[in-house]
């Protein structure tokens, strides 16, 4: 159905949540590329260049997630990649607000149900698909549609 790139960046290796989420999203029919742990923001952008995901998911515990999501956004922009970002993990409400301000489309915290995650990602994908990729926009200078 859609292509989802999932990764943990940085030195944290708590991967129970993200492993289960990757499995759920595959079961929901998406093509999931799970990069596992110990990735740098540059490595995520590199893989995104060839995989061309429709959405990118990051998972955090213990890191400064706003900073790291910012770094990933930077590297993606640098590589010319426009996929929306979603984030999961141990994230306080304050951080979730800052992530939204950064442009992250959804934040999934512990205890979020499978249904909520699968539906939530589907919503993000639907929102993103309303913005056709640059090559397909008829008028490249018209403002992007937002959900």
């Amino acid at each position, binding site marked *: 159905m859609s292509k989802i790139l999932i990764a943990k960046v940085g030195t944290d290796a708590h*991967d129970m949540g993200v*492993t289960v989420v990757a499995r759920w999203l595959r079961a929901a029919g998406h093509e999931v590329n799970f990069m596992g742990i*110990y990735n740098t923001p540059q490595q995520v952008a590199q893989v995104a260049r060839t995989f061309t995901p429709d959405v990118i998911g990051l998972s955090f515990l213990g890191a*400064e997630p706003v*900073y790291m999501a910012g770094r990933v956004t930077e590297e993606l922009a640098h590589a010319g990649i426009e996929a929306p970002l979603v984030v999961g993990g*141990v994230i306080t409400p304050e951080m979730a607000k800052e992530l939204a301000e950064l442009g992250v489309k959804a934040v999934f915290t*512990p*205890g979020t149900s499978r249904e909520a995650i699968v539906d939530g990602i589907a919503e993000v994908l639907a929102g993103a698909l309303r913005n056709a990729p640059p090559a397909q926009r008829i008028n490249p200078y018209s403002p992007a549609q937002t959900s």
Partner: protein
Amino acid sequence: MDRVFDRYLEGERPLDFDTTSGIPIEASYGPSGPPMSERPGAFPFTRGIHPEMYRKRFWTRRQQSGFGTPADSNERLIYLLKIGQTGLNVDYDVTTKLSLDPDHPLAEGDVGMQGTSVATLEDVDVLHRDIPLDKVSATLICQPPTSAFMMAAYVRVAQKRGVAPDRLIGTIMNCGFTQLVGPTYLPNTVFFPIEFTHRIGLDVMEYCAREMPKWNIVNVNAYNIRETGVNAVQEAAFAMMVASEHIEGLLARGLDIDSFAPRIAFFTAAHLDFFEEIAKLRAMRRIWAKMMRERYGAKNDRSCWFRTAIQTAALVLTAQQPMNNIVRAGIQTLAAVLGGSQSIHTTGWDEAFALPTEDSHKLSIRTQQVIAYETNVTKTVDPLGGSYFVEALTDRMETEITHLMEEMRAQGGYLELFKQRWIEDRITEARFALTDRIEAGRVPVVGVNCFQDEDDKPPEMRFFRIGRPKIEERIAYIRAYRAARDQAALARALARLREDTAMGVNVMPAVFDAVDAQATIGEIGETFRQAIGHSLPY
């Protein structure tokens, strides 16, 4: 609303009649077989390793702490001691645990986040400032090869303060198989090969066993094993098999079993299946005692004492309605006490969000103090001993755990099974099964899949947050530190370390030299990798 009014007449009941590891529970238990006739403090120590246990001395209140810079963490250590902590539990950040310096590119968002950032001898000195190292017991949470640096640095700091190594009290966790996030495959193989990690762990254990009679040489981290999602039987069996690897490694080096076994200890989880957790601990005591005497020929009773620190399991705590976690942690702490733990970390109610604030740290300590001082459960040993249910469950746990251990031994032991990814497969199986069951509502989690709040508002609470400036402070520090040293002395020390590592001798003397020459943790780690030809993809 009708549903609400129907609840009384409908009645609620358990969803099944099993323990969380799948052992069936009968409606009631009665006498079966000979009654429990063991006394606490007598082999095989099922009822406790001492005859008086908490009547003589309470468990140690040992909350983990660590964040930001060594100075930040030292402040929190002093605060915790002031409010009633009785032993230190020093947690380093992942960067430190991986033997990386704070300016390593992979660590740019992580330095000081899950623990204290430590990279130099000076850092260790600052972290333990104003704390008498021969009086206060400290657990140092790191694995090999970082543990080599950490042990050497701690000893040097103590010596500088006039405290010889043989007076130091505490533990270095030092388990090459179970630290970080437990026994998943990648964390234990990317930064160093697991055989190397194991070898350095044995080097540290040998050093400590010889020079530090009051120091625990390893903690097998059964807690981390359990946090991956496996059940209580697997937690115990994997932990015992990990311990076997360490024991056999030291025996292969010619050490006598009784010269080090009394200094092996464990770190286990206290989950919410109250009686299963207590039975697990009693079974582990019995299994350890028999294994040490029968399999390894230990003659000293102390070698047969299963000593454990406990953390109340974080896996069962929720982000939804987080105050419920205070209740959960309280019940888990009580299970740990009734199970005869040597020390306890009561996990903070805010665990699903952040490291503890001072207030949530304090509440954890108060939870333990209320149990210790107000409930009277400490006034007799193993109060559940003789309970038909608890004895039956203990026996059953012993059977299940022993059976799994035998299965693992027949397949080559823990390290072999790890390398074959058998351990990884068990973890993946367990994770998927557990989350499927939670999703299906077959594992009730109050606030998550039952009794949810109607509005999904996040809690309006103050959470702990460290922030990026601390990371930048550490990066600046380590760069300045590196520039201001005797580079020639450093180069000589690292050359010696590389040689000793490559030759396969105990690396501790060379690590001491490197620490004295002001090598950073990252430089020592990199030297190890160079010596064995292991490189990182960064």
